[in-house]
């Protein structure tokens, strides 16, 4: 996996690069928007980590240019500019995720992995969660390498949950995902699918029911982190 870090602060650029390398990324660094645009034209990048406050070409303009060129590279914005307005603005222009300074490197790595996972999914790569591995092309779920017998709907639900690990997923989102077919899906049906999936997998693979909200699949490929006062903003 190849990622470009665009950050003019040397300490931050270096730290982010080091962390992402540890997370198995190949990293290039650019310290202004123009250089970044030039580097990206060569192609082959799976992720762009973009600071908004840059000399020459600022982050938002760079992103707008990329999207204008039909470049769909996943973009994680990092900014000292707060306010949700800024965040919404960034996401509207085409950022995939937004991280506000000060952040933890661990958080950058987690978000970067999640972005690539979601993007890669369309590229046919597998989704993993502990002992489970999902093969999107074959629509197959394997437990410890052995294929499991799941109904097509259950597989679709499982796929959606695996794409959105460490995120709150509500029933409406699952229904939207499933409703491409003719019959409408009810909340009760979603609950049935989930309970069948649990029964068939047969062990606690990290799926939590969040009362009144939906489901949360905790990925088991991260080391547990100590509690901290970090808020996600």
């Amino acid at each position: 996996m190849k990622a470009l870090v665009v950050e003019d602060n040397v300490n931050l650029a270096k730290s982010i690069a080091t962390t992402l390398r540890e997370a198995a990324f190949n990293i290039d660094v650019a310290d202004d928007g123009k250089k970044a645009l030039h580097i990206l034209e060569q192609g082959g990048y799976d992720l762009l980590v973009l600071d908004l406050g840059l000399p020459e070409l600022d982050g938002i303009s760079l992103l707008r240019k990329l999207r204008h060129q039909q470049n769909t590279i996943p973009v994680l914005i990092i900014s000292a500019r707060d306010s949700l307005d800024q965040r919404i603005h960034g996401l509207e222009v085409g950022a995939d995720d937004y991280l506000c300074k000060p952040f933890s490197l661990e958080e950058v790595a987690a978000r970067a992995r999640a972005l690539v996972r979601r993007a890669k999914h369309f590229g046919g790569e597998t989704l993993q969660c502990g002992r489970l591995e999902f093969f999107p092309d074959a629509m197959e779920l394997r437990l410890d390498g052995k294929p499991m017998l799941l109904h097509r709907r259950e597989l679709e639900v499982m796929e959606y949950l695996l794409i959105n690990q460490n995120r709150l997923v509500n029933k409406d989102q699952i229904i939207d995902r499933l409703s491409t077919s003719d019959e409408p899906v009810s909340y009760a049906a979603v609950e049935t699918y989930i309970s069948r999936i649990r029964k068939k997998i047969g062990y606690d693979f990290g799926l939590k029911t969040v009362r009144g909200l939906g489901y949360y699949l905790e990925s088991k490929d991260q080391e547990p982190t100590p509690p901290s006062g970090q808020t996600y903003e």
Partner: protein
Amino acid sequence: MSKRQSIRSRLLLWIGLPFCALAILALISSHLLLSHQINETFDDLLLNAAQRLERRIYTADGVLRINMHYFSVSTLGSRGEGKIFYRIKEANGNMIAGFSGLSDPPTASHEPVFYDVNYAGNELRAVALTFPFNRGSEPVNIEVIVAESKEARYTLTNDFMVTLTGLMVVTGLLAISIALLAIHLGLAPLNAVSQALRQRSPNDLQALDDDAPKEILPLIQSINHLMQRMKRSIESTQQLNADVSHQLRTPISEIRALTEIALKDTPQSPVHSSLQEIQRIAEHASHTVKQLLKYAKTRNELVDSSHLEKVDLVAICQEACAQTAPNIYKQGQELAFDLKQPIPHIIGDPITLRWLVTNLIDNASLHAGGSHAYQGTITVVLTADADQIVLTVSDEGSGVDEAQIAKLTERFFRHNKHSPGSGLGLAIVEQIATAHSAILTLSNRHQGGFEVSVTFPSTA
């Protein structure tokens, strides 16, 4: 403590005092004029009586006599009241009839002379009249004196004065009532201004309407000017706060990032524990900076209520839960959202309302366990009835010492000094709640744990 001056009593005093003085002056002059007029009228009547008496004198066998029964004396009186005395005698001294004790006039004259006299303990008004008469062929001068007690005059004057005074009192009372009404009406715009100010929320610094009468317009303009300055002062303070927080973000990010890298590079080194401490402090600082910015922003937005819109609290709660969920589950806690009935929309600011909910969830996540890390469920509940909508965020943790509950919304107060909070979370929540006219209630739950309720007035 000196008594506060009142415009109303001042006006009353300055209307009432001149009015009383005028009334007294009017009464005195009326009294003088009346007494004078009454005296003249009564004097005329008295003279008339004397002239009538004069006509009753006749001569019989060279002796002057008077044709009057003793008891008809009273008919001489002007109004038949009071006592009448008379004396008729020749100018040379021979008494003809009447009371010889009546005193002579102070001056002798051919014209009628009026004078005051005292007789037998009576205050009398007398008239003396001298006229020529023929006794047989001998001409004599005859003097007639008629005196009348003054009671009738006094009574008449008194009657008049009593009526006049009564009229004055009634007019005075009427005038004071009219003055009170006028003062009330005149002060009404002033009362309207003070009421408008009293009914404002403490954060409303909008200008007052300046359609007031021109007398209080300068006051309103001064108030508006003051509010404008307060607004600017608050805004500049918030801007400074925001700038400072903003400028701190990048350096704190650097410290955090470099510390994280250094920690990984030096697992066995003696500096490891120091680095861990630096990391903890940097995390705390970054959290505080973020909260300070939010605090500044919510304060800033309190001043300006222009970007309020219809807000769906259910969606706000769901978004806040989705936003906080990764952190909550990473720490082994759970989230739940209970919705018992449909919730009407409220008028509010969606961004700050989401901060309110995320702050309450983060607050529970950080503090519910007391000195231990919390391992339980954080429940968000929305309920509604006709008048209000209640948002409750509760935990099943160790609760808070009752004595400290009131202090929780103070800035930088942290009831658990060991937890990594900024001490701003509930202050921000309170600020946002206040901006939405909502009431913040903090309490321990009967079944254990802590609960924060935000009660919004229903706008439906």
